[in-house]
């Protein structure tokens, strides 16, 4: 038949386990490990908040208002005597929930819009992209603000408004990726073998568009959390007495000189989680690159 297959065999290096390789590339950089650890810690904090928090975050104690950090209240108390640390811990739940759900909504809807616009082109593309352009004309935070204000504040309205505000960037990026992936011969091959549009889109196009989108998603997680904080700070976000980090920054704003911890602590948490998500996003993008597959 054709030249000996045993010779062909000898050329390929032994197959490294996919998973091991993924793990190796992902944890290859120390900063990525750092980011992962931070996110895990925040996730655990959110999950086990009731067990970790020393006090009830809603329990007011006006007699002990605005205390400085002490052994009993490690981060002090807020203007209504509530334990700052406990509120930060419970705040993790809100921030993560808002971040993950709103970005999830934006990603699913945005990627779907970008996929259809890019794959089908012509009228579908024009309609979708003009709509997206209109949305992008307004800065995301203003868009979120407008929607949140219109719907009234509250957790779910914030999530919806942020989700909607993040759709345009997801859609745009997805469309760009789809357009470039569509050029590849393997997509044409899909059509030649008779695969349906749905199959080509889900099996061939979407997976090959993912790497930059994953980075965008993790970036957006940070943006969402930050935006929630801004919205709450501006008063249209999560309403008190909910322990949202942004609202906490707002509450502590007046006491910046006397009790700086009240604003700095939640602010620091926002910063930390945003950085962590960015680092993890980088790591994921590198680890998912198929070109690094198979090489030891």
């Amino acid at each position, binding site marked *: 038949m054709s*030249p*000996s297959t045993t*010779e*062909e065999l000898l*050329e390929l290096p032994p197959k490294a386990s996919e998973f091991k390789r993924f793990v190796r590339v992902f944890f290859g950089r120390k900063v990525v490990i750092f980011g992962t650890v931070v996110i895990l810690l925040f996730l655990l904090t959110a999950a086990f908040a009731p067990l970790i928090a020393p006090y009830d975050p809603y329990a007011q104690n006006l007699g002990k208002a605005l205390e400085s950090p002490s052994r009993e209240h490690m981060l002090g108390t807020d203007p209504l005597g509530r334990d700052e640390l406990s509120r930060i811990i419970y705040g993790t739940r809100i921030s993560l929930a808002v971040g993950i759900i709103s970005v999830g909504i934006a990603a699913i809807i945005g990627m779907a819009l970008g996929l259809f616009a890019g794959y089908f082109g012509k009228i579908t593309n024009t309609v979708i992209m003009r709509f997206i352009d209109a949305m992008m004309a307004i800065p995301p935070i203003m868009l979120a603000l407008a929607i949140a204000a219109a719907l009234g504040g509250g957790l779910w309205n914030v999530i919806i408004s942020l989700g909607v505000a993040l759709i345009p960037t997801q859609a745009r990026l997805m469309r760009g990726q789809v357009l470039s992936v569509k050029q590849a011969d393997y997509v044409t091959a899909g059509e030649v073998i008779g695969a349906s549009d749905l199959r080509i889109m889900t099996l061939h196009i979407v997976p090959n568009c993912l790497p930059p989108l994953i980075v965008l998603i993790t970036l957006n997680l940070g943006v969402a959390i930050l935006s929630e904080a801004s919205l709450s700070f501006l008063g249209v976000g999560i309403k008190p007495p909910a322990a949202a980090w942004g609202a906490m920054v707002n509450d502590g704003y007046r006491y910046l000189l006397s009790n700086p911890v009240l604003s700095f602590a939640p602010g620091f948490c926002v910063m930390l989680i945003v950085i962590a998500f960015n680092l993890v996003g980088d790591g994921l993008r590198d680890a998912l690159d198929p070109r690094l597959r198979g090489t030891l």
Partner: protein
Amino acid sequence: MAHLLEVKNLVTEFRTDRATVRAVDGVSYYIDEGEVVGLVGESGCGKSASQLSVFQLIASPPGKIVSGEALFEGEDILKYKADSEKMREIRGGKMGMIFQEPMTSLNPSLTIGTQIMESVMLHLKMDKRTARELALELLRLMGIPDAIERFYQYPHQFSGGMRQRVMIAIALSCNPKLLVADEPTTALDVTTQAQILEIVKNMVKKSNTALLVVTHNLGVVARYADRIYVMYAGRVIESGKSKDIFAAPRHPYTVGLLKSVPRLDEPKGRKLVPIPGLPPSLSSMPGHCAFYPRCSYRVDACKQKPWPELRNVGDDHYTACALDMR
């Protein structure tokens, strides 16, 4: 008499964190004035890397010319630093090079005229007016119609074949003594390829320039080269007069190449005899002959000895195979 260019035992390595790759592994060749020499091999054999080394255009790191000499007009130019004035004088002045991809070798934001003039003014120290006239003359010689209009146009306004002609014009503008053409026509259509090579051949004959053609196309070397060097895995494995090598190749790789390529003039029934397997990975070379796994003439002894040096098997005909294949 000294050769115009004589390369002796050139070794160039590329170092990455994973491995050190010897792209050029002790390569020697020469070319005399007015000769056309072909350097033949497939991708990864080191033919381009050796030229870039001689011109000191190797990016370092990760590349490094480890040892060897390149005697141009008797003087070892490798002893000059890559960015020294002496090297820059020679490169583009006395030695010219044409690259494979004309689009990326021309500056997209400068007009063609400017680029030709730049070269001439730099090497021949001409004033602008003389340079401009020379540039226009060159464009006409290259068969580019409406040379005056074209002079002011940009690379993207030219087709691939035209751009390659401009590259040749630039390379020849300073009357180099040696012109190296690295896969000059691979990106071009067949009829354009014939045009370009014909132009180069004529220009080179007129000015007695030496021409070194680096290519994987055996037909091109058969048509234009007087002598050829065949490379594999970083080394020269056969060299000699073009007619001798094609008539009686003395290395199994050369034999394999010739048998595996279809020819316009052969009878239909001839089945192509491919070379089985794949070229070796340069980062993990065995101590013995690198062609061994794919060689149809091999014997056990080939695996036990180190890769043979070139030996004389005829009038200026050398082979790196220890076996007598006749």
